[in-house]
């Protein structure tokens, strides 16, 4: 009987604690809306990043389904002359999680600008790729991005970003017929 008590009481207590915590966490999960954080850009971000392509006040989502997992979305401006590709760099390099970037294109396939919108790299080292001065090196790049330099102390992250941009350049050729 004593053995039973030693086994049953702890089990019940542990079960009760787990249940209470699970219920509370489920409530938090619903209240904070973490589950609804999709891959798309929010309304605010659509306006915030609009200056990546010319003549644009707010980016508009283009309906397009791609089989490429790293292509998260395609956006355009009102005149539908420019495209913005939302990409992530998983499978290329990066570290714990993929870097996400927006790459803006002219209709002739040259890059108007690049913006890094999610950069889970080492703070102080890899996060240097968000620097706007560095990203200006991508402006006007066409066909291949391999000539763009990497940053000292952020070599792996800038290589990851570069391969992401390279991927965007290839994807632009694929999608431009369908979208523009």
């Amino acid at each position: 009987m004593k053995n039973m008590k030693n086994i049953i009481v702890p089990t019940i207590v542990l079960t009760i604690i787990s249940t209470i915590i699970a219920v509370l966490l489920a409530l938090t999960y619903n209240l904070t809306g973490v589950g609804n954080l999709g891959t798309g850009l929010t309304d605010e971000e659509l306006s915030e990043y609009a200056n990546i392509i010319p003549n644009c006040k707010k980016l508009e989502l283009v309906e397009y389904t791609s089989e490429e997992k790293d292509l998260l979305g395609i956006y355009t401006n009102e005149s539908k002359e420019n495209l913005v590709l939302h990409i992530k760099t998983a499978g290329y390099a990066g570290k714990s999680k993929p870097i996400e970037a927006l790459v803006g294109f002219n209709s002739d396939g040259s890059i108007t600008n690049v913006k890094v919108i999610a950069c889970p790299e080492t703070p102080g080292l890899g996060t240097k790729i968000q620097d706007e001065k560095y990203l200006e090196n991508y402006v006007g790049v066409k066909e291949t991005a391999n000539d763009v330099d990497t940053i000292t102390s952020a070599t792996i992250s800038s290589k990851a970003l570069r391969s992401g941009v390279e991927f965007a350049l290839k994807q632009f050729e694929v999608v431009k017929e369908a979208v523009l």
Partner: protein
Amino acid sequence: MKYMKEFTKGILKENPVLVMLLGTCPTLATTTLLSSSLGMGLATTFVLLCSNIVISLIKNFIPKEVRLPSYILVIAGFVTFVSFILQSYLPSLYESLGIFLSLIVVNCIILGRAEMFASKNNVIASALDGIGMGIGFTLALGLIGSIREILGCGTILGISIGNWFEPIIFFITPAGGFLVFGVLIAVVNTILKAKTNKKPKEEFGCANCPSKDVCAGKGECK
């Protein structure tokens, strides 16, 4: 006021990072910039405070066989709560802390305080102990973070300290982290030693003497 000691001990005398050398892994990994070190410190403080309070409240209901699993459950619950909050309201901090946010669950400071303090003391003392230890952890991380950011990036909280200073990338790398960490431990040790030496030496009275019974407390052996 009798609890004041529980609060202040964590800040210098029993500082979890620089004196007890707990939680070294997040200390070295998240202190490359001041902002992420403070984020890590505050997140840990919150979890430490809440878990100390809850564990102190439920300590009498928990059978000793499942003591540690219960503590871990409570701590993991709070850590998940913090990571949900950060993910939806402060995504950039969530990204820069990365895996180390979830690793707060197994942070030895939190489990150590739960096992050593909260499970043996009342709620008020446990809460103060949690805040004190948390502030000590945050201050230590903030100190290491600011030294590494100033020397390694030439900025403080992202604001440049001027072009005259050429950043030393070494301090951002893990090796630089170890260097700063070691130097700070040495400094804190020196301060603590100086503090104990300053106190007037306690009179070694006859009452405490192990040979009291032999000489019957005549007090001539001084």
